[in-house]
Every structure is written in structure tokens, then in C-alpha cells.
């Protein structure tokens, strides 16, 4: 089955990102296809490479990046939600005249149309929220 995943909450504050990560890992192990993972609302904070959780805790942004690299996942951060919350790639930071970017490897920033397209193209759209 082909899935698109929507993550609506930030890492650590809510379990959504953990649950989504485990779902995606399990789906891939079972041979399913992940068409896209879309990060919205505070979910965009999963895509910052500047998160430094305690060493004895999981590092969710790094786990997403590693999973993306291993399986060629399409991790998309909503641009409107990301701009509000200060999640930037190099191009967007330059365009906004900012002095830094913080997007984690394997993530890309794009529009909400990517979420709708994911819904249209996939067999299931699974929402992980509060």
C-alpha cells in the first residue's frame, strides 16, 4: 500500500513524531511504500538540525534524516508553517535576508499543495497529531 504521512506536532512536546517514525519504519519493513511525509503546524520543528536532545534520549530529527537516507523518503516541511517558526533552508534564509539556516539533511521545504497531492496519489493519508 502507498502511504502519505502528515505530522502535526513538534518533537518531544508530543508523541506524534515518535509514533509516525515507528509507523513509517514498520510500514517499510512490511514492504509498503511511503509516498511522502509532510510536516505541518509545529511538526516543522522535526526538521531542524540544531536540536540537541540529551545524549541518553532519542534524536528525532536525526532519526528522520537517517530513515530518509536509508529509504529515499520524501520529507517535506510546509513553507508557510516553517517561516512562522523559523525553520529555513539555505535558499529561503537568503531570500529572507537571514544570517543562518537550520534544515536537517533529507528534509526539503515546499508548499501545502504537496500534502494535497500526497493525499490524491496515495492509498491512505495517515495523520499523526495531538
Amino acid at each position, binding site marked *: 500500500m502507498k502511504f502519505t504521512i*502528515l505530522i*502535526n506536532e513538534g518533537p518531544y512536546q508530543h508523541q506524534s513524531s515518535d509514533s509516525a517514525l515507528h509507523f513509517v519504519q514498520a510500514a517499510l519493513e512490511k514492504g509498503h511504500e511511503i509516498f511522502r511525509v509532510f510536516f*505541518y*503546524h509545529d511538526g516543522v520543528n522535526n526538521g531542524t538540525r540544531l536540536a540537541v536532545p540529551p545524549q541518553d534520549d532519542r534524536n528525532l530529527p536525526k532519526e528522520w534524516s537517517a530513515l530518509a537516507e536509508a529509504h529515499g523518503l520524501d520529507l517535506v516541511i510546509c513553507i*508557510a*508553517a516553517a517561516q*512562522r517558526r523559523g525553520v529555513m533552508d539555505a535558499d529561503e534564509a537568503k531570500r529572507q535576508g537571514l544570517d543562518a539556516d537550520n534544515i536537517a539533511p533529507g528534509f526539503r521545504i515546499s*508548499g*501545502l*499543495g504537496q*500534502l*494535497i*497531492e500526497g*493525499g*490524491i*496519489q496515495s492509498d491512505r*493519508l495517515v*495523520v499523526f*497529531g495531538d
Partner: protein
Amino acid sequence: MSEVKKFLYVNRKAPYGSIYALESLEVVLIGAAFDQDVTLAFLDDGVYQLVKGKNTEAIGMKNFSPTYSALGDYDVTKIYVEKESLEARGLTLGDLMDLKYEDEDDDWAEKDSIRVVSASEMADIMDTQDIVLSF
């Protein structure tokens, strides 16, 4: 992308106390460009999103409530509000914004977008959807 799917946006949270209502509306407006079959549902505290006469000046936030009135122009014409959620909060249809759309199949007659339905009817509406986005 010729396939048309049934998209339901479920709005469960009050506006302004959190960003879910505003960002849900942003998805609906962007999604409208994809020519899908769109339905909106408002339940729990989400019914407060449609209450008329809001003034956000004192909380220093942008009042995005007028945007709901534009939904008809985006061909978002099916807006269901759960009766039990209204009643539990002492609200009636008369407390909500008067959202309209022009029906192109009926000589552009102006019609009400909002329909109040029971929880049981809402469950049936949810059951018929391809995609349910809950905010």
C-alpha cells in the same frame, strides 16, 4: 491528476487559543486549487471557529474569521456543524456566521453553506470520505 477524491477537513479546536484553526483554513484554501470534493466539519470547540462578530483587537492577533466567508468563492460549499457540540456550548445556528455560496447548477442561486447535523449524521459523513484531515 484526474482522479477526484473526497477530502474532509475536521476542525475540533477553538480559534486563536492555538494555531490549528488558522493553519487548517490555509490547507483548505490551497487544497481548493486541486479541484477535489471538499467538505468541512466543525465539532467540539471547533464550532467556535464559525461564531460571528469576533473582535481580536484586545489579544493582538489578526482576525482571520472573515476568511471563512470567502470559502464559497473557493467552491467550498459543504460545511457541517455538529448539533451536539453547538448545544453543549449554548450556541445555535443563529450565533454562527452566515456563510453562503452561489450554486452554479441552480442559476447561481445563493445558498447556505452551513448545515447542522447530529453526531450520528456526522459519523456517516466521515464514513464516506477518502481522506480525513483532522486539525
